[in-house]
């Protein structure tokens, strides 16, 4: 199997210089465009609201202030919200990584009666607009006693069909010979899963981990509906409670967004370092 791209796949030759430069130019322009909203968010968080909606827009705050961040932490149990979001996101990510890879492996590499039916059954859960499922789901969850606690925040989302699908697609591309070889060496089913499939799926797991964490961290609607006390709220919901009147408090909103974004940036770089770089797997075919 290949080593991950430490070495470029293409030889460096002088005739290829200008496409590389062109690539850099295009990428840089696109990156600037993509980062624009983020930049705007950060600078707005340092402005007073009236400066935020000034026209023509000012790119850098003329009177930068930490006022919004102060308000954020002074008026609210922001730390508690942060912790809640962290607990929920971490638990969610863990369960997704474990259960989706298990199911994805089975769908990718195993044959069993009912496989197609079960797979499409799982997939179909994504195809019905969640809006209408909310009501019976909420009713169910309230009957299970999961309102306003971590159970209600974590359990309903523990396994997502999109994660199963992602892992299936990736594991599908792994050579079957690896599994056979491991079995010949006497590995158990669990062994094959943990010592062959999981390590080889690190890129997909990293991606799934990042997506899951982001999804859980930014989730707004479900935590809003299921939490009832101030201390149980997640960050996204808690920030919304600070919006009082019908007019948007842009400064505060952006400051909250910035604070909420930090863990995700950390998670991204952490996952990336561990899983996407320098992966060397012994080749079978030499």
């Amino acid at each position: 199997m290949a080593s991950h791209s430490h070495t470029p796949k293409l030889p460096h030759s002088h005739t290829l210089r200008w496409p590389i430069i062109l690539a850099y130019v295009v990428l840089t322009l696109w990156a600037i465009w993509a980062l624009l909203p983020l930049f705007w968010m950060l600078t707005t968080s340092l402005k007073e609201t009236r400066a935020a909606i000034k026209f023509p827009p000012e790119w850098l705050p003329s009177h930068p202030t930490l006022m919004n961040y102060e308000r954020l932490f002074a008026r609210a149990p922001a730390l508690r919200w942060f912790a809640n979001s962290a607990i929920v996101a971490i638990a969610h990510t863990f369960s997704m990584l474990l259960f989706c890879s298990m199911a994805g492996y089975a769908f990718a590499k195993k044959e069993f009666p009912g496989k197609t039916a079960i797979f499409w059954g799982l997939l179909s859960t994504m195809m019905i607009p969640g809006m209408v499922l909310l009501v019976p789901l909420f009713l169910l969850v309230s009957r299970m006693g999961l309102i306003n606690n971590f159970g209600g925040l974590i359990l309903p989302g523990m396994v997502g069909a999109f994660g199963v699908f992602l892992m299936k697609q990736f594991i599908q591309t792994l050579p079957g010979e690896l599994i056979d070889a491991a079995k010949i060496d006497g590995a158990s089913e669990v062994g094959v899963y943990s010592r062959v499939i999981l390590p080889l799926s690190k890129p997909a797991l990293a991606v799934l981990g990042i997506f899951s964490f982001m999804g859980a961290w930014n989730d707004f609607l479900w935590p809003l509906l299921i939490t009832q006390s101030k201390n149980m709220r997640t960050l996204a919901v808690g920030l919304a409670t600070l919006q009082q009147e019908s007019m948007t408090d842009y400064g505060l909103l952006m400051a909250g967004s910035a604070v909420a974004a930090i863990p995700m940036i950390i998670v991204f770089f952490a996952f990336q370092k561990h899983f996407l770089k320098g992966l060397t797997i012994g080749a079978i075919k030499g």
Partner: protein
Amino acid sequence: MRRDSLAKRVFKSRWAYLFVAPAVIHFLVFSAYPIAATVYLSFVRFNLQGNSWIGLRNYQIALAEPVFWRSLANTALYTMVVVPVGIGIALFLSALIFPLRPSAQNFYKGAFYLPGVISAVVVSMIWLWMFDSAHGLLNYMLPTMTGGVMKPISWLGDAHIALPSLMFMAVAGGGGGAVILYLAAMGGIPATLYEAARIDGANRWTEFWRITLPLLKPTTLYLAIMGTIGSFQVFTSIYMMTRGGPNYATSTVVYRIYETAFEFLKLGRASAMALILALIIVGVSIVQFKVLGTEVEY
């Protein structure tokens, strides 16, 4: 060889069942009941004082409403533009990033991923500001950069431009997740394949078309399916920015479902609309699987 009996096959596959068990159990507990309830509700007139069975009437009403068809058309158009263009852009960007030095790769990966850390609500607000007729960034940049040639555009106020504006917003959002996914998948393609192809005299283009692209099919299928499912259910941007207007130009099916369920409290009709949409999505997904779903293993 004669096929084993069903019972024998089930027993032989017991490990497979074990591995899918957590997912299936979770589905049975948290999805099966809500879906069943939705199907039931689609056949009743919902009222807390007592539901009354009205058979297919909800479906009839939904399908007879011109607004529903308009919403369906908008949703389909939105999906047909956003998904292919989004995947195309992601593929293009990934192809540009992949040959670069690792440090450059990481930088651009980060640059395209970062916009995704902002919640959908805040993204909508930022774009709402960008699209603002009087004070928005776009209407400020356009006349300034073209020396007054281009006049300010009513991005969300013009019935012909509103939906394209939202499409633009969806596509221009960086596509970070897709880029990350493609790069991860590209990393899994063995270098030996490229070396063998080069020995056979292939150039970069051929390499890309004949090796990279086909081997990325599983990822492309995933992005196509997920993108379609997501785009067919677009809601947050509509809710935050246009409320389906102007004059239903940006009305999408899920927005109508939301309105029917949560503003009119007509849960029965909303359930019927949701199931109609689900059927369409399932149909489209099946087609996508047929086209892109050939097994790839190397």
